[in-house]
């Protein structure tokens, strides 16, 4: 039961387009900043928004085809839609919400039990915690036996504390349901955890579609690189030597990259590829930036350390061992092969050579 969707639809300041196929059992995530056209895609699939032109089909059944004037009403599409903020009916209790779209009562009881909310059946939805509300919304969407799932920012309404746990639960759930699932989020980490493939979307256009690993290792452009967590530094390619490009960074430092480029470039490097030490080591790492530590921010069990223009992500234990503190001088090192170069005006410099 694959989902196929393609459409063109003008939004306020740009035209949103997409052409996606989601096979059964696959979760496809669209990530991008707010207002990029992510929710528009979900609303078109659900039938809540009719695009200027486009088509939607699930398992060969055409739900929308603007050329053939087919437009199946949303209530007849068998789509499980988890809304941002969940959109639970405030005038109904948990049972009333889950039962709203259900075909039979046994299915409702089964779902209440499966999501561990049977003891809340008579609770007002306004009194539930964020995690409970999400489970009620999922149970409600699944009570209709949907042919596909649409998840709009499923984790953004949760606080950081419950988020990691709910994310793991949701991952399990999506895996066991084996439905084609389209998920949108502004958080690349959520997308990478929950989805098999991720599309980075900006101003209504999908810039790159691939597995999370592909996006991180071969980002198609600086936007994708930034979105997947890379640090992007502006600079100028000044020389080529032994197949390496020397880049004069705007911050005054010099960086070497294994990519080829000329003229103005953006250098992308992932913070977890940057290591820190008291002195520049003579090893395979070509790039060394010695500067003062300007900030140290814990992120989970890791620490993000800003050193001059670069950011290094290291373990809390390493940070302690190095005795890092703001103002201390430290050397940040990374390999020339850990960098990506993009011409400053757009397309990737070396995507073709990388294959």
């Amino acid at each position, binding site marked *: 039961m694959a989902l196929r969707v393609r459409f063109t639809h003008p939004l306020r300041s740009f035209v949103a387009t997409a052409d996606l196929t989601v096979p059964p059992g696959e979760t496809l995530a669209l990530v991008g900043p707010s207002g990029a056209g992510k929710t528009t895609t979900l609303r078109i699939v659900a039938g809540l928004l009719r695009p200027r032109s486009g088509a939607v089909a699930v398992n060969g059944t055409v739900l929308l085809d603007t050329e053939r004037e087919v437009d199946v009403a*949303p209530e007849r599409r068998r789509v499980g839609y988890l809304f941002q903020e969940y959109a639970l*009916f405030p005038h109904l209790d948990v049972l009333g919400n889950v039962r709203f779209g259900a075909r039979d009562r046994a299915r409702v009881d089964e779902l209440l039990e499966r999501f561990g909310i049977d003891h809340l059946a008579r609770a*007002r939805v306004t009194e539930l915690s964020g995690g409970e509300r999400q489970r009620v919304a999922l149970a409600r969407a699944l009570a209709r036996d949907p042919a596909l799932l649409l998840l709009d920012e499923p984790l953004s309404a949760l606080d950081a504390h419950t988020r990691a746990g709910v994310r793991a639960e949701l991952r399990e759930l999506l895996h066991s349901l084996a439905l084609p699932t389209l998920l949108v989020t502004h958080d690349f980490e959520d997308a990478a955890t929950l989805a098999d493939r991720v599309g980075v979307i900006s101003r209504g256009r999908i810039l790159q579609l691939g597995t999370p690993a592909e996006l991180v290792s071969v980002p198609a452009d600086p936007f994708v690189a930034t979105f997947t967590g890379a640090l992007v530094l502006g600079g100028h390619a000044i020389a080529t030597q032994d197949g390496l490009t020397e880049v004069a960074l705007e911050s005054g430092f010099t960086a070497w990259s294994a990519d080829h480029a000329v003229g103005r470039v953006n250098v992308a490097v992932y913070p977890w590829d940057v290591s820190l030490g008291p002195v520049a080591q003579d090893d395979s790492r070509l790039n060394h930036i010695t500067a003062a530590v300007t900030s140290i921010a814990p992120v989970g069990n890791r620490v993000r350390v800003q050193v001059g223009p670069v950011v290094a992500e290291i373990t809390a234990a390493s940070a302690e061992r190095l005795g890092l503190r703001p103002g201390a001088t430290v050397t940040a090192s990374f390999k020339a092969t850990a960098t990506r170069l993009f011409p400053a005006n757009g397309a990737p410099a070396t995507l073709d050579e990388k294959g």
Partner: protein
Amino acid sequence: MPLGDLISALGSSAALDAIRVTAETNALAMVLILGFGTPAAYWIARRRGAVRDVVVTLVELPLVLPPAVAGIGLLVAFGRAGLLGDTVDALGIDIAFTKVAVVLAVTFVASPFYLRTAVAAFEAVDPTLPAAARTLGAGEGRVFLRVMLPLAKGGLGAGAALAFARGLGEFGATIMFAGSLQGVTQTLSLAIYEQFDLDFDVALAISALLIAVSAVVLLSVKLMSRWHSGSGSLTLFAASSRQPT
């Protein structure tokens, strides 16, 4: 004036007839206002643009019209010499100066109070809720009955109370379009005016009755809003505030 005398003054035939006429005509007017006004308000709440502006203007017109103008307007529309007079006459019906005229006058003057509040109440419902209902298999009708109506009922109740209170006090349009015939078209407000010259005690007693009824209506709105305090929005003059989305 002792309370006993007030109550016995309400027992006069003029007062009893006025109570009966008012109850009958206002009940019918409320049925018309709720029956036609609720779907109309829902329709307006879901429209944007010029058509909506025109419809809203037409709906709100009775709110700002002087009652005498409303009375003349109804006479011109439905009276024997009026625009629809020939049609109505041909059917053997004469509307002006009958109970039907009272019902029309009350409906005309009171309906904007309900419609305005009802439109605001429907618009205050988070638009993702009807959208969610659609994806859960509910068609337009079921979305209206199971989602929109229950979520807007606080505002609808407040609007109905406002319209009822306005209809109860209706005077100008009624006296011009329906006259003031005791037992036929003389409502409580009209009876006060007539009894003011004939028997002041009766006028006073009817006034006291209207004050009491109005107070009960306002109080019941307040109590309703307390019961529904969980779902928000139910005071007469701030019937709805759009939830942040």
